[in-house]
């Protein structure tokens, strides 16, 4: 069965349930949006799927990707890409090196690697930026490099953890379009955590809010503005 | 000569069996010494001496294939303590020290505790050149017979150092020095015992105050020690407020006293090497008007030695080094006042012509007294006096 599937996933922080018994299938090319206020468990759920759950959060259930159970694998073996609110380009590497960092080892020849990086830059509208210091790029440019970097690793699924929250309105629209266009083209199942309904609308996404009642309410109290 | 040496050696062999069994003929030593490393534990507080030991290291490496490592001590007692600790811990061989620069109390302590290798000294080919007749202290270290357990290295005599420009006519007695100090407050001090310069200064005070100096040939008697030394403490207590820093503190060592003299903080320094002042003048540290003098009663002279611990890792190479230190070449180099300037233990007048020239060519520094001016020579008091004096000193002045 292809796509990203969760079976009876439960999450709890310090004994307080965040998610209880979530079953979910996100098919290739589909976008699902986890909606909810801060602190409800969105990020923890994504971390669980990606393989980097923080200590102190307990979880159970199963995570399947394209018919393989992946929850026992270390993060780097799961082939699940992730984008955060910040671009997290590695500050010690140039733009081109950041992209090349993501290329799988199977792309062995130096010429091939260079070509793939060039192509990704062209795709992001940043042709000729390979030697640039990431710190000299604009926020929108950096975000696009981060997306291209995630794609170059040839993921089988993509997680978006408030990936658009830090951008201003105009940039957010164009970057959203950029991300979903590429994710659909690559037929990736996309699971998006957001507190902004516009993100879900833009992706035409299925909206989920699987939060345990208490946790959402508490989150609401913490951040009345969201 | 041969017979006497043989008898002495044989006699000693009966007393100290393990060492004697290991003392092989010299020619055999050369072969086993090659490639060995000798850890030479020697006081490391003088550039000139360190430089000389480094020269010795290069020579023995070149000639005999021996690596010499100078372990620089601040006090020879450290090395004695280490050998003793090793013996206590049951380390009978493979010890950490192969050769020690030693004399006096430290030698006595090691000899009494059976911490020394040997007798080996009369096996050394260069022993034949040593001035046994003219320099009796090469066989008698303070009041302790050397018994072939330590090889003489150099001769020392205590001298006082002054600057003609500041003190044209220095007092030539301890009492005179103390009167001078009372008239010139803050200009006299000496290193704090147990530093050996400081201890030796105290011995001169003792010589002058004890009344009958022959008493010092015998061990100190605990019953009369208090009374014997009462005049000494009276003299020290009287001069104390007039000393440098009002006698509340003392420099830590001989070189520290030299530094005070160089800086002009005090007007007298002291040395156990009659040529040391000339060396320091040559180096530009002391003014050219620096001179040395000795007391009317004379000053203490002694010999310093090298010895091999019983558990040395490389006793063969250590003996080769000890012999090289006694060679006319190494002794002449050592006596050069532009380097260390330490007096030889050899009978220079009996050396072969070629070797003698090496000594004759040496300059005598401006501040060095001629041999005839270095008389009389006082003998070291029995080591027990110093031990008792140092304890009493700590009790009174080290609080």
């Amino acid at each position, binding site marked *: 069965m292809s796509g990203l599937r969760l079976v009876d996933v439960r999450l709890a922080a310090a004994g307080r349930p965040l998610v209880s018994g979530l079953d979910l299938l996100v098919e290739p090319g589909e976008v699902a949006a986890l909606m909810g206020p801060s602190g409800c468990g969105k990020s923890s759920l994504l971390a669980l799927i990606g393989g980097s759950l923080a200590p102190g959060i307990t979880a159970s259930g199963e995570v399947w990707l394209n018919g393989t159970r992946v929850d026992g694998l270390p993060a780097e073996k799961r082939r699940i890409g992730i984008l955060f609110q910040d671009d997290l380009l*590695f500050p010690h590497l140039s733009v081109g090196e950041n992209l090349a960092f993501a290329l799988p080892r199977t792309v062995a020849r130096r010429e091939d690697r260079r070509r793939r990086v060039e192509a990704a830059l062209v795709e992001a509208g940043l042709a000729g930026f390979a030697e640039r210091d990431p710190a000299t790029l604009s926020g929108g440019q950096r975000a696009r490099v981060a997306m291209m970097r995630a794609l170059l690793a040839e993921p089988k699924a993509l997680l978006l953890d408030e990936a658009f929250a830090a951008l201003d309105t105009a940039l957010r629209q164009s970057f959203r379009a950029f991300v979903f266009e590429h994710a659909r083209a690559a037929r990736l199942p996309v699971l998006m955590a957001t507190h902004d309904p516009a993100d879900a609308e833009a992706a035409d996404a299925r909206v989920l809010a699987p939060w345990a009642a208490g946790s959402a309410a508490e989150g609401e109290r913490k951040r009345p503005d969201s | 000569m041969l017979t006497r040496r043989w008898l002495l050696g044989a006699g000693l062999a009966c007393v100290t069996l393990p060492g004697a069994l290991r003392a092989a003929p010299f020619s055999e030593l050369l072969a086993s010494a090659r490639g060995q490393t000798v850890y030479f534990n020697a006081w490391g507080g003088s550039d000139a001496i360190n430089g000389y030991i480094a020269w010795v290291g290069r020579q023995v490496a070149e000639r005999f294939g021996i690596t010499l490592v100078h372990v620089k001590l601040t006090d020879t007692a450290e090395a004695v303590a280490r050998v003793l600790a090793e013996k206590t811990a049951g380390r009978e061989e493979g010890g*950490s020290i192969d050769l020690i620069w030693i004399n006096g109390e430290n030698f006595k302590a090691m000899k009494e505790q059976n911490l020394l290798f040997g007798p080996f000294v009369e096996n050394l080919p260069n022993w034949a050149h040593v001035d046994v007749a003219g320099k009796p202290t090469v066989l008698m270290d303070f009041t302790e017979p050397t018994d072939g357990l330590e090889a003489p290295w150099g001769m020392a005599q205590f001298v006082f150092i002054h600057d003609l420009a500041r003190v044209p006519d220095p007092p030539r007695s301890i009492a005179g020095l103390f009167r001078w100090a009372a008239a010139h407050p803050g200009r006299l001090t000496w290193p704090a015992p147990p530093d050996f310069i400081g201890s030796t200064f105290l011995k001169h005070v003792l010589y002058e105050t004890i009344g009958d100096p022959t008493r010092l040939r015998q061990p100190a008697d605990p019953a009369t020690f208090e009374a014997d030394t009462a005049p000494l403490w009276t003299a020290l207590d009287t001069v104390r407020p007039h000393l440098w820093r009002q006698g509340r503190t003392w420099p830590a060592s001989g070189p520290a006293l030299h*530094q005070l003299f160089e800086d002009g903080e005090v007007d007298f320094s002291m040395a156990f090497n009659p040529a040391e002042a000339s060396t320091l003048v040559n180096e530009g540290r002391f003014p050219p008007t620096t001179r040395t003098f000795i007391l009317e009663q004379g000053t203490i002279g002694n010999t310093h030695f090298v010895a091999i611990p019983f558990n040395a890792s490389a006793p063969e190479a250590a003996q080769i080094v000890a012999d090289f230190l006694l060679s006319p070449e190494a002794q002449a180099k050592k006596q050069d006042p532009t380097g260390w300037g330490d007096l030889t233990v050899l009978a220079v007048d009996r050396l072969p012509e070629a070797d003698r020239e090496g000594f004759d060519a040496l300059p005598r520094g401006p501040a060095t007294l001629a041999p005839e001016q270095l008389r009389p020579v006082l003998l070291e008091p029995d080591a027990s006096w110093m031990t008792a004096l140092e304890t009493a000193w700590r009790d009174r002045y080290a609080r």
Partner: protein
Amino acid sequence: MARPLRALTRGGRDPFLAAPWLAIALFAAPLGTGLAGTLLPAFGWLPALGGAAFGVAPWQRLLAMPELAGAVRVTLTSGVLGTLGALALAVIFVAGLHARPVFAWLRPCLLPLLAIPHLALAIGLAFLLAPSGWVARLVALPLGWDRPPDLATVNDPAGLALALGLALKEAPFLALMLLAAAGQVEAPRQLAVARSLGYGPGEAWLKVLLPQLYPQLRLPLFAVFAYSLSVVDVAIVLGPATPPPLAPLILRWLNDPDLSLRFPAAAAALLLVVLLAVSLGGWRGLERALARWLRPSLGRGAAPRCEPLLRVGGALSAVSVVGLGLLGMLALSLWSFAGRWEFPALLPEAWSTRSWSRALPLLGGPLWTTVWIAALCAVVALVLVIACVEHEALGGRRPTHRVLALAYLPLLVPQLAFLFGFAVLLAYLRLDGTALAVVWAHLVFVLPYTLLLLREPWLALDPRFARTAHALGKGELTVLVRVKLPILLRPVLIAAAIGVSVSTAQFLTTLFAGGGRVPTLATETLAMASAGDRRSAAVGGLVLALLPLVAIALATAWPRLRARRRQGLP
């Protein structure tokens, strides 16, 4: 819960699991056996020397020592005044100057000052302050003195020169620790708020930041105090000789041919621990009293008189800490090339390279030994600390973290209290006198400093960098080598350079572990300095200072070169 996930974090693997335990074994063995090896003889038990029964005889003998009372007095005076002085200098330096333009110039001076070994700085300071030193010469010229004054400005019986030396040397360390701690709270914004409420920059710093930062300063502060109590090399150069502070006195007894003196020596080493514990206890009490006393003043509003005072104080502390450091090094350089240099001339009358040409051949071997031991220690400590901190970052296993906090213990226990016993352990393992033993002994001290310097920046790195790299298919090792290390290059290199400097400065540890057979720059330099020959001591001090300074220069220059191309790096 239903079917458990097979993996809660990172697929359940932690390649660094062994690291904390290895680190602990590395220092716990010396510390534990060392303390036991001191405790037992302090109560009369040392079979090798015929002590087979427990008793208080060593203490009775210790109490009967004529030097004891004076030694304890000097030790406490210099330790307490030195530590308080360092704290005052550091706080006033940072509070009074942090907002001034000159701070950008002063702050980079702190690391080199931290790196210069205590001994080198002490020798330099002695050249400045001695009655025949530069300060006296400056006074002598106008006053027409031709002799140095008979004043105990160094080696004074009360130990004030020693306290001053310790305060000046430790102030940069505490200032750096304060600045590092300030980096973890939102210092600039808090200061901006306080200043908008009418507080001057210095007062804002004292009242807003210091109370928050102090808890983090406590460990370094206590380490400074523990160090001050048991320091030997600086005490020999700046402290009084009769009676000396406890630490040099203990060393003298340990080196005495009369082996029975080792019993009172062990008791005295234990006495150091007691003095330390009592003082630290007293300090905690004082802290509370001070907090209660000062708290009302926090709510009293801005005081206009405070600011100018702080400015002047800041300037004074900068001059004394940085200025004396620089002048001391300059004096070292001059003396090392001096020929005849009579009092009160400000400069040598004659120049000579004799001291260098004599000392350099002798220092060549020790220099090489020092370099490789220091480099090995720094690298091993770095690997262990990074593994430990990675282990910590990966989460979960709290108990090992607490055990790891023990790694700071060597900084808080007077060195002498366990080195004697540690030497016994080394002898038992037949390691005494080997370079390996010296490396091990140095690591006991290099490790905690590396941990102290590297842990916070390492844990402060945004964990999402690693998560991103994992999501891009990279394994733990790749992420470590290609992402974390390069981003954290600066703190890593600085930790390594300080590791080099800590190892280079080790005198007592080298002496005990090396059994005198592993000569390093520190042991050779102290031999030269204690002999009193100022010129060769100057050469030794300079060579000793050079190695850590080169290490620090490399550690700061390399990331800076890189930063020209990559502005996003911390």
